[in-house]
């Protein structure tokens, strides 16, 4: 997994609530057997009106829109547990998702893939949408070490939560599997002492 410490980037704004993983990546694109290449189909039904007919109104198709931070409405990533959603966002080039609320499984999946979910207050989210809509060139800074997100040169910033284990993993690029494999002896001892359910 890639390390994440800090990021300074323009934002892509998607002020829609309850964006479910079927929108992020529809099931018909889940037929691959590797983790790569899902970015091409990210938000595909919103990006295209029909095959090969891009929807000019959708934010990712608008000229000048770019950035490694996606800002979205509350309850981002609800629905299916497909990790392909996190892979698609990462593969497309996003490194941070900002929202006022994340669905549980999505949050875990994102953290397991070096994609940082930053949960902010409803007020702060409204501010980002407002400031970045007025001035699309605004850069947002995400500092994982300090757990701080701040908007451009304004004084507007907010602390965000992340559990210290996950923070440690993100900063060092470690994943959960490395951690668990190191616990193999403890796991075997547990198996011996416990009559399984």
């Amino acid at each position, binding site marked *: 997994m890639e390390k994440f410490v800090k990021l300074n980037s323009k934002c892509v704004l998607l002020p829609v609530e309850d964006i479910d993983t079927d929108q992020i990546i529809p099931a018909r694109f889940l*037929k691959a057997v590797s983790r790569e290449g899902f970015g091409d189909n990210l938000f595909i039904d919103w990006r295209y009106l029909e095959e090969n007919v891009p929807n000019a109104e959708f934010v990712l198709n608008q000229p000048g829109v770019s950035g490694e931070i996606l800002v979205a409405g509350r309850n981002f990533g609800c629905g299916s547990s497909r990790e392909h959603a996190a892979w698609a966002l990462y593969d497309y080039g996003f490194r941070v998702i900002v929202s006022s609320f994340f669905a*549980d499984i999505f949050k875990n999946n994102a953290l397991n893939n070096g994609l940082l979910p930053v949960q902010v207050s409803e007020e702060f989210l409204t501010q980002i949408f407002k400031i970045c809509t007025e001035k699309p060139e605004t850069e947002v800074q995400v500092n994982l070490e300090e757990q701080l997100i701040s908007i451009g040169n304004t004084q507007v910033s907010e602390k965000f939560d992340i559990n210290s284990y996950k923070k440690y993993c993100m900063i060092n690029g470690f994943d959960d599997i490395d951690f668990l494999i190191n616990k193999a002896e403890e796991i075997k001892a547990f198996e011996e002492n416990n009559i399984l*359910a």
Partner: protein
Amino acid sequence: MGKTLFDKIWNKHVVHTVEDGPQVLYIDKHFIHEVTSPQAFAGLRARNIPVFRPLQTIATADHNVPTENQHLPIKDALSRHQVDTLIKNCDEFGVELYGLGHPYQGIVHVIGPELGITQPGMTIVCGDSHTSTHGAFGNIAFGIGSSEVEQVMATQCVLQTKPKTMKIQVDGELNKGVLSKDVVLYIISQLTSSGGTGHFIEFCGSAIEALSMEARMTICNMSIEMGARGGLIAPDEKTFEYIKGKAFAPKGDAWDTKLAYWKTLKTDEDAEFDSTFHFKAEDIEPMITYGTNPGMGIGISQFIPQVNGTSSAGLEKSLKYMELKGGSQLLGHAIDYVFIGSCTNSRIEDLRLVAEMVKGKKKAEHVQAMIVPGSRQVEKQAIAEGLDLILKDAGFELRQPGCSACLGMNEDKVPKGKYCVSTSNRNFEGRQGPGARTMLASPLTAAAAALTGKITDVRDFFKD
């Protein structure tokens, strides 16, 4: 203070606690399928490690399989490759596979219980959010992502932060024509699609206890649609009766030992939940969804909420997609498709209910009605009971088992702009195919819609 059933099972499975971090949770059974496992197997290969406990891992092919001509090679090249990859992986890593053609094949959450693999007190995971279904047997079952699938394959454990607990109690007697699907759609409509986030739910109360095991599975199946990690129901005599004699149920002395343990699995009287909700069974009527998340449901006789102000931007977007008007009724709205299937409602009881309802009748001419049994065993039983003939006479197509139009990964899709009354669990935009408009309902309501060609109050059928 007493403990909840959830706490008891969880605590029993904690191997290690990371300071200010997640816990290492031991997993008793791991179900895998073709869509979310290939990347995990690839991960094991890259690390050059085996599946740690292959005997606790069970595989099937369900998400991406055709529901016709399953004996022939899969036509779609990508789907075929995915299913072949599962076969190859299971073979290489020593995992038992109930693939296409196997008498145990079926939707992963249907086969676990019907084979007796799913038992009380266990921890169960699968790379599919509706793993919560298994919770109906009084265990902790939840969906995980592919990285977590890899964790479980590598170590039989998964790193998890312990969720909070929620109690949902439903007391009273259900009205005629109201099924457990209506109960859960009603609860979600009350709590919203994110109302359970961060929680594990225990369902209880006299209305829940009165339900059959299959009906209980429908409730736990959809607990995830409130955003919850999962849902469970304390095991009782019905649970034990259901498991007894199943292919992988404990036998002989092992049965007695297990049974004695299972009987202890309940929430203590004085246990406290982080939150509690009460509902009355009498308040629930047959439900139907009008929007694009499962929380957007109403009683069949009710009106779609009005769009007013900016607070309902989500509602407005949903109604636009569904081409429905706020303030109008769904009753009488013409429909094009009916899908009866998915891990929510594809069990033998569901098929029996539908068959009983449509017996001797004909579906509306313009409606396409598809029934997809949850497993080979369900299919076999349906045929043994002659349900296939009844359904066929009524113009319903009985397909072969799989997830099918629940997620539209295979050919079974609803075309753009068409309305489909579906017994599945998600009405997201495009879930059943790009542009498809899904209305979630119970198998009875779906069958009634197939007969009349429009949204119908199933209670009308019971009047005379």
